[in-house]
């Protein structure tokens, strides 16, 4: 009896020790790189998105701050300049010839100049920008509300996502792009911003136009937006995960 207790004891302690050793002994790096294990870890994203969408009413607003809260220095992250020659020549003439293209699964594909965008229903909001790295900055944004704009171009019934095609390249992976679903697209605080802190958007912050999607992390707020494409799925596009950073392993749903 005593022997059996001892054996059971040593078995249990050994398995506990093994569990600890597996985790600490460098196996974690192999696990981190295993596609199957990554798939398992990533299942948490579905749970987070599902629960957040459940408790977050479609209209709930991100907190808005006052002028006194504005960051003295708003860090520009990701691309801070664009090398593309076509963008450079547009920038040369203060984007007078720039057009935002809206196409894909829409009834009336459209091209809009900056002046036309400025004439659309707009919204000004002082919000907090939360970078996935951990820092936050507060800025004042003015832009055209995306919802009414989408209503005017008309979405086809099978349109489920909007893909934002940008002018900047990061790393060697190519052009920046992002995507949002229609819940965020029609949220009142989702705007195509052309002004920051009361002045036209500067190049480090995404001139001439950037997305503000206030209930998600910074990388969703695509800069240098050139084209908005309505799609039913982004699975066949680029890395298939709906965005530049998403293709590198970051969450598509960046509400946390």
């Amino acid at each position: 009896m005593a022997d059996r207790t001892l054996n059971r004891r040593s078995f249990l302690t050994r398995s506990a020790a093994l569990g600890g050793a597996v985790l600490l002994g460098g196996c974690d790096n192999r696990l981190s790189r295993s596609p199957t294990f990554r798939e398992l870890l990533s299942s948490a994203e579905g749970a987070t998105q599902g629960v957040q969408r459940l408790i977050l009413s479609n209209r709930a607003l991100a907190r808005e701050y006052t002028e006194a809260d504005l960051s003295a220095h708003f860090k520009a992250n990701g691309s801070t300049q664009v090398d593309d020659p076509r963008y450079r020549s547009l920038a040369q003439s203060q984007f007078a010839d720039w057009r935002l293209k809206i196409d894909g699964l829409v009834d009336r594909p459209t091209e809009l100049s900056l002046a036309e965008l400025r004439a659309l229903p707009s919204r000004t909001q002082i919000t907090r920008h939360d970078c996935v790295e951990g820092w936050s900055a507060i800025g004042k944004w003015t832009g055209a509300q995306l919802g009414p704009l989408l209503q005017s171009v008309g979405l086809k019934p099978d349109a489920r996502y909007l893909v934002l095609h940008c002018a900047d390249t990061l790393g060697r992976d190519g052009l920046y792009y992002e995507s949002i679903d229609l819940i965020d697209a029609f949220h009142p605080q989702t705007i195509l911003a052309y002004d920051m802190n009361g002045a036209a958007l500067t190049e480090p912050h995404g001139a001439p136009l950037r997305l503000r999607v206030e209930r998600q992390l910074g990388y969703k707020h695509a800069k240098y937006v050139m084209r908005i494409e309505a799609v039913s799925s982004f699975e066949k596009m680029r890395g298939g995960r709906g965005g530049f950073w998403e293709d590198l392993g970051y969450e598509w749903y960046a509400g946390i």
Partner: protein
Amino acid sequence: MHTAAIAPRTEFIYRHALIVRITHWINVLCLLVLLMSGLQIFNAHATLYWGSKSEPDRAILSMRAVQREDGSYAGLTTIGSHTFDTTGVLGLSGSGEDLESRGFPAWITLPSYRDLATGRRWHFFFAWLFVLNGLGYLAYSLWSGHVRRDLAPTRGELEHIGTSISEHIRFRFPKGEEAKRYNVLQKLAYLAVIFGLLPLVVLSGLTMSPGLDSAFPFLLDLFGGRQSARTVHFLCATGIVLFVLVHVFMVFVSGLWNNLRSMITGRYEIDTPEGGHG
């Protein structure tokens, strides 16, 4: 003299319920992964602030690498207005070609190499497991009376807390009948962790979510801003590490095998002193 009768008797009691044992070990795994992946996430911006936003000149803690005048590199950690040389551990670690500027060193982050995206995947998966496991434990403990019966200190215990402290300082642990229950310091420590530190680490973590901030704006007011919540999250993690260090130390000094066995099989051995007989 009947020497045989003087030898202390041993008695086995069933100390930890199955659910407590299972949730305890799942919790161990979760906290280990959450700590290590959390430090990976922290490393992406190894600076803490108070308030809503990050103003670089108002950091309360920061870790960074600098180049010394002789060309070599140093890791510096600044807390408030004090700067410490933490080369090799904080701010700068690794050796030879692997020397790199990073908040916490590779051996304590998950994954060990720099990879924020993967760190977040680990963190959020185990955060879910941690919360579900914790809720399971809480539901059981409240329903079964575990909290009321085993964790809530009695009035008498609270009145004699001084005695318990002085016994702990001398590493004298309860024997016999007394050893069948948690002592008052143990009860208070467990209660503070279960109903204080752990809920706080979850809430401060959730406050960093821009999505949840929109659903529950009071979270921002509770912590005084998102950056404060990040700092509180870090402090809670530090508190949990300190608790675990003391907890494991106490497990060692009060009978390693007995304690471990009781948390694995439930059986706990008690020495009944002969004093009780006369």
